[in-house]
């Protein structure tokens, strides 16, 4: 348990939460870009039509 806490503390020290947020934002945006390149129509239909139920 103590070891686990230490691991978490070390991990948290590695990157600040703001930096972690930034890197995750870059990863998510990159994934969206790749999927949009692979299947633009599917992405557009999903976010502009399928998610609207009424």
């Amino acid at each position: 348990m103590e070891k686990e806490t230490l691991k978490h503390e070390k991990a948290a020290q590695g990157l600040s939460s703001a930096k972690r947020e930034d890197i995750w934002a870059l990863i998510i945006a990159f994934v969206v870009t790749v999927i949009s390149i692979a299947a633009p129509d599917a992405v557009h239909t999903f976010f502009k039509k399928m998610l609207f139920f009424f």
Partner: protein
Amino acid sequence: MSLLRSMIVPGWPRYIPGLLLCIAFALIVMNIDHVLGKYHKADAASAAIPKIEKKLAEARAAGDSDTVAGLQKKLEKNRESLEKVGGRAGDRWSWATFFYQTLQFKYVAMLLIGGILIRNIFGVPGVFLPGIGIARPIIKPGIIILGVHYVWSDVIRVGGTGLLLAAVFIFGTAITVMWVCRRFGVSDGLGGIMGAGTGVCGVSAIIATSPVVNAKPRDMAYAIGTILLFGTAMLFIMPYLGRAIDVSEPQFGAWVAVAILNTAQLIAAAEWFGEESRNTAVLINAARIMLIPLIVIFAVWFYGLKTKGADAGFWKTMRSKFPVFILGFFILIIFNSLNIDALGGPKVEGTPFWAMNAVYKWFFAIGFAGIGLSISIDDMKKAGGSAFLVGSGAATAKMILGLIVVLLIGTELLRVTGGN
């Protein structure tokens, strides 16, 4: 490997319930917004069709083929809007126009006001709170993707103006607040974080500056409470104030980027006002947040502090405080400016950038849900003491001066064209 490990938030499963709540809230509100928007469009189309038909008849009689073609296209579009709700010309849906246009009750307002009401009237169970807290930064991927809306000429013109505007306001406010705090005997810790908080980016600047100025937890609570209180008040007041003063959308975008301190709140206010306003606000905000490391360095110099460890040194501070996600935003602007056929543009159907243009609003919606649900009246009550007086004075002065400056700059220098 350690970098990979540090990318995973410790105790991440506890964030999932709150995040799912924000996604569900955003989904419901986006659907309500969609229905309201559809009926508002139908209402406007229903009123417009007889007028267009009359003009069309006149243009046909005059033999003006260009006008006839243009009016026919307009007529078709309006008929499509009516068909979507199964209505006919003459039917009215004035309730939709009242909510959507008169009250500006769009998805941003619904998420923010709805979130505040849910949080403060019904309450949010503790299990959701950690996840609600991390929903707000979900706006960041949305900001990056929004990069497909800009070209380099926008960055140079609007971003250049914005950078200058941001630099003057940030350092002007920070220096004034720090000086006033020192003069009135406010502790260096509180003065330092209030200077950074009212000057740059609100809560994130307070958190970034607090270790270098040795701020106490109570000081941080005061400063964050004050920033949240003003950010929230301005977020609701400014869109209505902007309409009352009749500023243009690009001017409003620049104004909120200067006056509101928190990225998520300013984007919410600008999105609420209009698309053009949001485009200008996001670009100026990108220029502004790049100045965060400089304000931390300034605080270190102003208070004559010696920092230790990772925060020591100019370049180390620059590196540790620089908002790296903004690089993704600029990379997409570069690609959009290069006019690459394979990537297309936000308005070119069937292209990757057109697809990405459909996504960003969802990231914003989840983030706005996070803002609304995390605004607690109890937290705002923590605003107090001298921090409140200095913070409120600086924020109000910045809002008034910001308005004067954007009115002097005019609309064109602040308008984002977007290319494509």
